[in-house]
């Protein structure tokens, strides 16, 4: 078996091991299952004389490795944490993430001695705290409830929540200089948007350019979910690929190719940090880098390997992502949907190859493909299925890249002079008012409520989907002649 195939299966099995252990299966069960699988592969491999199956037998060990790695990771994290829960205490810490500012402030605080670990502090909107602020708190840290939410926070490294503690600033500037600078750029960009647009449009623009959702009203969040357009404000490959193309085009003539390559990498890294390194952004950035690298080195890039190794790399850094980060799961699934299901849809619907006005055919395929892939997960997590998703997306998606580009240009212009950004504000207002009215319109139709989804049903669905994709993957020659 070739090296890149071994790598693919190894990474894949490792991921499954991580996932299964995170889902609560006991370590011994996983060892037993891996051994069982290994033996089956061994038998089949020797009977069929298939070397590949023999290899798979050996690689079954990686199920166990994945589970073990997760267990060790969690254990280590638990050892590093020391918090007194449920009591009124005085504690201090440093703000280590860009604060979320909505109706109030949400700060991620790394605790200082005598405590250890990270907690989420919920405060009034004012006085305002920033990244790098060292704060002295007086209040109660409690364990997050319910269990689902606790695990969701844990994957981000947060072990407790403190609601409206008393907070006093001790000192500023205790964070990393680089992040401080990048966050300053982000804050400036958001401020410019807020100055040239009404608050809801500014919030939406902040969402599609930087994935910043803390300023969203509950109505907007609900409308996005009901119309199936939330992904527009969850940064993904869209933004990264636009960024890469834009940078390459502008730098391409000015500097040497090698320099342009590294500069692109640096800018992507900066963008990822600036936007808070959400799972979907990191995934897109890593995949973009892998594909860029492949181009540089001159080897044909295998999509299958790129996506698996990206997932592997991310899970290595944080195994809890696989099971508990919804954004991680959705972004990978939608990418798979767009890459594999979309072409099958295209063939099934017999769409022409020409992308069409505003690339409508391309968008239709991609939207349907992504929806097919993520729907079971949406039902599982949110209990609803947005029926108007395809319509809403088709009307909005074509304009989003323009909106994003105009947004970034407005931010750039605004940093030079506020007055330059004003006309950009008018153009953005037209685009955003249109997009928001579509989202609100489709968002008012009740999404189909599906109370529960059984795991076997979901797996069955995916099996059928895989079958559909395979069926339309390659048509035999005789169909063409019909």
């Amino acid at each position, binding site marked *: 078996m070739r090296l890149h195939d071994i790598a693919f299966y190894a990474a894949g099995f490792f991921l499954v091991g991580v996932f299964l252990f995170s889902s609560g299966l006991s370590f011994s069960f996983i060892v037993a299952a891996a051994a069982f699988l290994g033996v089956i592969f061994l038998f089949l491999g020797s009977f069929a004389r298939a070397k590949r199956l023999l290899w798979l037998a050996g690689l079954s060990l990686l199920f166990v490795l994945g589970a073990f790695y997760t267990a060790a990771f969690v254990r280590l994290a638990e050892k590093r944490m020391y918090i007194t829960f449920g009591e009124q205490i005085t504690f201090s810490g440093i703000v280590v993430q860009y604060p979320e500012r909505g*109706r109030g402030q949400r700060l991620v605080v790394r605790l200082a001695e005598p405590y250890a670990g990270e907690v989420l502090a919920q405060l*009034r*909107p*004012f*006085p*305002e705290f920033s990244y790098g602020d060292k704060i002295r708190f007086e209040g109660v840290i409690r364990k997050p409830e319910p269990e689902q939410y606790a695990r969701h926070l844990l994957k981000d490294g947060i072990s407790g929540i403190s609601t409206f503690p008393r907070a006093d600033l001790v000192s500023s500037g205790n964070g990393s200089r680089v992040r401080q600078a990048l966050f300053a750029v982000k804050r400036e960009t958001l*401020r410019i948007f*807020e*100055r*040239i*647009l*009404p*608050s*809801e*449009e*500014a919030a939406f623009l902040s969402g599609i350019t930087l994935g910043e959702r803390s300023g969203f*009203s*509950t*109505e907007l969040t609900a409308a996005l979910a009901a119309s199936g357009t939330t992904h527009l404000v969850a940064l993904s490959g869209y933004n990264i690929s636009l960024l890469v193309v834009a940078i390459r085009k502008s730098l391409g003539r000015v500097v040497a190719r090698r320099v342009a390559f590294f500069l692109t990498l640096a800018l992507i890294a900066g963008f990822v940090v600036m936007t808070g390194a959400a799972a979907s952004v990191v995934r897109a950035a890593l995949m973009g880098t892998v594909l860029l690298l492949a181009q540089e080195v001159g080897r044909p890039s295998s999509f299958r390997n790129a996506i698996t190794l990206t997932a592997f790399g991310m899970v290595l850094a944080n195994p809890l992502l696989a099971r508990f980060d919804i954004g991680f799961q959705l972004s990978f699934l939608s990418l798979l949907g767009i890459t594999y299901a979309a072409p099958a849809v295209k063939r099934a619907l017999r769409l022409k190859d020409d992308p069409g006005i505003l690339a409508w055919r391309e968008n239709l395929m991609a939207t349907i493909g992504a929806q097919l892939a993520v729907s079971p997960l949406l039902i599982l997590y949110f209990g609803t299925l947005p029926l108007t998703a395809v319509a809403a997306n088709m009307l909005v998606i074509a304009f989003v890249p323009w909106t994003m580009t105009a947004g970034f240009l407005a931010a750039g212009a605004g940093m030079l002079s*506020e007055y330059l950004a*004003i006309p950009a*504000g*008018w*153009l953005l*207002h*037209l685009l955003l*008012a249109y997009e928001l009215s579509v989202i609100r319109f489709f968002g008012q139709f009740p999404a189909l409520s599906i109370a529960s989804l059984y795991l076997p049903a979901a797996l069955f669905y995916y099996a059928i989907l895989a079958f559909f994709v395979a069926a339309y993957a390659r048509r035999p020659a005789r169909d063409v002649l019909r």
Partner: protein
Amino acid sequence: MRIPRWMTSFLIGFLLLDLFVWGAILFGGPAKATTLYFLDVGQGDSQFIELPGGAQVLVDAGPGKGVIRELDRVLKSTDRYIDLVLLTHPQMDHFEGFIEVLRRYRVGAFISNGARGTAKSFSNLEQAVRESGVPIVVLGEGDRIRIGESRMDVLSPSPELVLSNEPNDGAIVLLLESNGMRSLFTGDIGAAVEERIVNRYNIRSDALKVAHHGSRFSSSREFLAEVAPAVAVIGVGHSNTYGHPAPETLSRLTAAGARIFRTDKDGTVRVTAKDGKLTVSKTGKGPPLRE
């Protein structure tokens, strides 16, 4: 010559922008009426005044950021400029909203009574004023703001009141005369300051912004008899812990013949004066304010 696709998109975009600009020019004429918006900002005060000719004044901005949502409803979406913002006195439930207002809007001038606030968030306001570069104007009793045919007289505070131990007593009190309508904005003043004003000025008004969210220590019988408002509006938050507005105040207002409106029940209240007629409407409760 075949027009390339990108040029078609560009021309369409340009045409739309053109229509938009002309629409704004033709249909966006300045107001002829005087409109007062008593904004629903929760437990706090904020009033937005639109004068004939288009000048806009924001008196107080409530706590937190609620004022932004209300301003979005009241202002045209392309209007990012407010002529004057006025802080009656530096208490949190009056000044906090200005932090976001100064960040999001271009402002002509920031008017205050000169006192410094003690709340922790006041430093955020000072920083926002500094960063915006907006000129600060300190006004007191005897000052006047004239905008076109309208004028706002400052009836209080005197220098002694600003320096007193009670921040509420130092609040700026404004009497607005515009389009034949007289409106009185009282900040958080108590009965003592009310008596002082009664003795020095003619305060008969059509609309009254009820002092201190309807507290029973304000809106005295004598004061209300002199103002004799047709419309009285109370800026108050749902289920507030102060018991505002006090039942005694409500009965005094009714006895004075005023029609009472309150932001916790009526949402943002709009009072319009045009051609000698006064119209009041409630824009209704927006989405519930969650703390």
